């Protein structure tokens, strides 16, 4: 199994532990990752606010590179996934629009033929790798751990661009993986809500209030950790939890795991290799409980 790897800016910037954990579990799963050093940022939806056509063109450029490699794209960032899916949706349903985009790419000698189908690692796990294969690789089941899923917006909305009708399994993918790891799912209504990251710089109070709400909701449900496929959710829920605790005037202490870290823990990979010591909110109590030191 081989993919054109699109880690996204944050996994190469603010969350290097995500990049590292993802490559480690992919090795064990037998997923080969081919980097695309010429690929640009997806625009994260922010660039699109200013210029959607530019955003779509940049993504088409990346898709064309993957087509030239003869591979499908895999990402480890929900936001990248969402933005790429939306761009792809617009281009694939409107050949004229795609032609306009391709006109811009022509100068670089690239053409997007409309065959890309970017997939988040979470989807790759359940659709391509399969949970049986994952089960085989589990050496340290997360028995007794209560884990709350947190999808983040871009992996669940808008449903048409994410092809949810053809892939209803995507709506429960995170729970399925958590169960496969041997942990207990802590279901809560906030799991598909927004973490608040996009307005962190615009209205920090509101952004932090969202962090406080989600983390204390799962705390009250007895969760040992939250797991997310989105590095931006991680940045906010982990990095801003101290402020959330101050705002909500309570202790929350909720470890926020990247999806590949949770998987890696169950595969027996060490705490350090997974970068679990790099978080703002301590993961020590959790890893002790798992038996990972």
């Amino acid at each position, binding site marked *: 199994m081989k993919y054109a790897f699109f880690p996204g800016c944050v996994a*190469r910037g603010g969350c290097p532990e995500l990049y590292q954990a993802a490559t480690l579990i992919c090795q064990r799963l037998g997923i080969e990752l081919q980097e695309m050093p*010429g690929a640009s*940022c997806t*625009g994260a939806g922010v660039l*699109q*606010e200013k210029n959607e056509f530019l955003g779509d063109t940049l993504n088409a450029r990346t898709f064309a590179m993957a087509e030239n490699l003869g591979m499908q794209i895999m990402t480890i960032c929900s936001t990248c996934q969402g933005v790429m899916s939306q761009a792809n949706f617009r281009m694939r349903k409107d050949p004229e629009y795609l032609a306009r985009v391709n006109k*811009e790419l022509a100068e670089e000698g690239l053409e997007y033929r409309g065959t890309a189908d970017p997939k988040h690692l979470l989807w790759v796990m359940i659709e391509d790798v399969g949970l049986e294969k994952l089960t085989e690789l589990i050496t340290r089941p997360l028995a007794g751990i209560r884990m709350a899923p947190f999808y983040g917006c871009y992996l669940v909305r808008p449903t048409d661009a994410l092809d949810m009708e053809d892939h209803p399994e995507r709506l429960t993918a995170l729970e399925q993986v958590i169960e496969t790891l041997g942990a207990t799912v802590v279901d809560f209504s906030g799991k598909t809500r927004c973490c608040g990251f996009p307005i*962190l710089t*615009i209205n920090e109070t509101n952004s932090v209030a*969202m962090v406080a709400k989600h983390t204390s909701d799962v705390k009250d449900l007895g969760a040992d950790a939250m797991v997310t496929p989105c590095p931006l959710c991680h940045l906010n829920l982990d990095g801003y939890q101290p402020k959330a605790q101050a705002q909500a005037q309570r202790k929350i202490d909720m470890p926020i795991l990247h999806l590949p870290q949770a998987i890696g823990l169950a595969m027996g990979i060490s705490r350090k290799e997974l970068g679990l010591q790099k978080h703002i909110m301590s993961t020590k109590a959790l890893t002790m409980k798992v038996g990972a030191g």
Partner: protein
Amino acid sequence: MEVTVRIRRYDPEVENPESYWQDFPLTMDDSATVLDALIKIREQQDGTLSLRCSCRSSICGSCAMRINGQAGLACKTQVASAIDDASTIVIEPAGVMPVIKDLVVDFALFWDKIREVEPYLQPQGEEPEGEYIASNESMLHLSSVTSCIMCGACVSDCTVMEVDPTFLGPAALAKAYRFTADPRDGDAKGISQERLEKLAAPTGMWDCTRCGECVTACPKGVAPMDRIMALRDQAMEAGLNNSNGARHAEAFVEIVGHSGWLNEALLPVKTVGITNIPGLMSFLPVGWRALIHGKMPPLVHHNIEKVKNVRKLVKKLEDPPPE
């Protein structure tokens, strides 16, 4: 078909009122809507169940509530599609707005926001001799926004309103767009400068997280979030760049346009050929800087390969040459 309708109930008139769940088992036709089920419960099992409805055909906007955790119209949702494996449907009142009784919520907040955006045409400048003319396309473009039935489903599920009721919110901002995008509103060129200024202030367009909840909730395809993004674009076009939100978007474009990805923004870098990295850094959102600096070891930064091509694209599509 046999179903169980689990309803979140609330009676303000008992001593120490508290909401509670109540299950109603019933038999429904395969074609029944959730509203049919609720009405049947009220008629046959519990006459005190309070809810709003009128048209039963997604026109009046009265019956918005949370169905299995997501806001929508009870009259537009089929029972058959809403039941889970145990044949249960979970019904709650709409969110954000305070509950009056059972499924009836207080819409005062909703209407306050709509009023706040002054939802009527405000042409400025000289009056034309005849009528104000609007092109067909411009009206067609607005038709999806004008189909709003004021049901409040979007407000119910808005991520930001949940934590901050001062936010203008999806319905009012979509309504505002209905006017900013109307060629008859604003100055002779149809630019609603004053409106945009107000909408770009705190609690307005830049406070939306782009979570998409309102797009999913809306039963009428209004897609409030997309209208909010269009408002942001209009505001930047109108030169209203003096908000953190606008600066964020512009910095993003510049940074991607320089190095192809975001890393550079996050690091103090010395680069050759580009002049104003410290300047860019300083108007990058505080949050990005703080987060990244706190967490990241200073790597040696590099541009993506063939970054020249990305720069060219950004330059060309951001400042298209005059036709």
